[in-house]
């Protein structure tokens, strides 16, 4: 009887210690002796330039380029097409973020880019035949409600950090609410309200293409 009471006490004590350590994050992923979370980074495969002067959605100038211009009359749609199938690998623990990396060609002062270049959630589904006026060419339902793409102007974000010419955008709120929360991936759009023309490196750039990244859940 005495032994069994002792055993129960020992087990309870062990569980209590484990709970305390867990709440401090000491037993969670990357802590202690386990390996640190592995960073995941994917190039956007859906990269599409839209301009008012290009009405043919299959125009080769609008896709698979080394660079794209972002200006008042030129925007770039971005989408990681397989994102929905990867969301279970995203670690949100400890305030970890999902970020989008955009690299410019350096022709514009980084400080200007950081304030002028905005990344906005798209509100209408689109495909690679999108143009300035149409999200997709089938019928009339594919027409953007606003020429130049339908996006959430309130949800637009500026780069929160940069290293030289690579700018980091924290898209965690969009991922949580749209991609994970609503299970829909309508993508993002790069816009600027500045009069400057910002040249970003495109999806054909081998090492600095637009990317989305996060730390992989263990």
């Amino acid at each position: 009887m005495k032994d069994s009471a002792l055993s129960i006490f020992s087990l309870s004590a062990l569980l209590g210690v484990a709970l305390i350590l867990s709440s401090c994050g000491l037993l969670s992923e990357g802590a202690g002796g386990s390996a640190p979370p592995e960073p995941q980074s994917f190039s956007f495969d859906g990269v599409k330039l839209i301009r008012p002067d290009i009405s043919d959605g299959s125009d080769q100038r609008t896709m698979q380029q080394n660079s794209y211009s972002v200006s008042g009359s030129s925007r770039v749609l971005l989408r990681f097409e397989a994102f929905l199938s990867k969301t279970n690998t995203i670690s949100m623990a400890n305030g970890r973020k999902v970020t989008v990396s955009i690299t410019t060609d350096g022709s514009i002062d980084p400080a200007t880019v950081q304030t002028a270049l905005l990344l906005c959630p798209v509100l209408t589904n689109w495909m690679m035949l999108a143009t300035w006026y149409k999200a997709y060419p089938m019928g009339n339902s594919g027409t953007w409600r606003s020429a130049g793409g339908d996006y959430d102007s309130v949800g637009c974000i500026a780069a929160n950090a940069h290293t030289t010419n690579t700018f980091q955008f924290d898209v965690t709120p969009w991922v949580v609410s749209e991609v994970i929360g609503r299970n829909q991936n309508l993508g993002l759009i790069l816009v600027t309200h500045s009069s400057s023309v910002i040249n970003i490196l495109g999806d054909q750039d081998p090492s600095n293409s637009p990317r989305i990244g996060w730390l992989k859940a263990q």
Partner: protein
Amino acid sequence: MRLTILLLAGLLGCEVNAAVVRIGNGDEGSDLEGFTEVTSGPLIETRAEALKLLKSLNVNGVHGLGSLTPEVETSKLYLTKKDSLELGKVDQGSFHVDMKGRVYARTFAEPHAATRFFPVSNSLDHEQLIALHIHEALHRSLPADIRENESIVSEITLAITSPDSSFDRIDKVVSNYIPNEVTLTEARAEPTPLPIPETAKIKKPSEFSYQYRSYLSPNSSSTFVVNSMHVLQTALYPFGTKRFVPGLGFELSLVNTPKQTFMGPLMINVQLKMWSLRQFDIGIWATAELNTLSAKELQSSQYGRDAYHLGISLRKDLPMFSIENILAYTFESTSTQTIGAVPYTYSYGGVVEVSTHPALQLSPFRIGGFLEFLLGDHYEVSGGAFDYNPGRYRLLSGGPEIEYRINSIAFVLSGRFLLNATQDASYDSLGDLLGVGTAQGNITAKVSYYF
């Protein structure tokens, strides 16, 4: 039984001299003996036996004897109070009179007439009375042109009542006087083959043609802009008969787009043309629209699919008017197109097509038009995170068709316009470049040589 056989033998012996007679006209007042209806007795019993015999031999199935059984069954029987002597030609034949010239029975040679038996018939035995019932009923049930011919009626009676009678024997005897062709005359009268008119399509089914299609300016929703198309078409029908010809044809096309010109799909079709007994041109076809000869650009587009069709057309040409109805079905299939780095799949559901082509025949012109209804199961575009599927859709098209034909050469000018469609639907939704084409429609000029 022996008496019956002798009776029948006597009948055969006299049939050579038999002539057409009228039965029971009651001339000279000799039939005014008075009579009573028979409701029981040997006459009723023998009638029942006659019916049993007719049913056992399935006489109803013999051409020309279909109403014999009802005549035996329903005829009213009367027995006269006095015998009557033979009335010259009226009562010829051993079935009617005895050796002393007394008449056994008489009837009027028309359906549903009564049968009058005379007292002398009481001397006949069962078998003879059975034969007499059948004989009198034959006078009423046979075709009008032979029912009064005593020799024919007697021979058929013999065939039915002889001891070794059978269906085949009765049928053989009856067919000597009522051939099947005669009895089927009415039934066959309508479908008797008529000569095929020279204007019928089946007269010159083989075709070699060229057509030029100019596509209407596509609206902004068009995914594949085509300016024009040249189509070479040939169909040969080396086999078959005058009314039934199978053939094989194909179409080659050259597609002009704003960017370039390239080979379009290859269409191979197996066709069957027929000429119906009701003078309709009937066409049945199965078509494979293959992209194996297409340029890379066409393969990597929403039109880079193989399409398979089945259809039937019915056409009737009248002196001033002609009409052709078409029912066809296109099987579902898919095509893929990679745009940038994203592969897209175009899924085309099955499409039902019904159309009618009425026209006025004002030789050598044929001036008309067409109305076509296309019902597509679905048109879905998917790739990456994108999916577009508006569901079932309809397309209503129409346009003029004018043909000018001189002998074996025909010139056709036609137009195709989209009259009504489900929101978002256009000819693009069909993905059928060689069929209805793209965008909003086209104008076509065609010249054909038929042989």
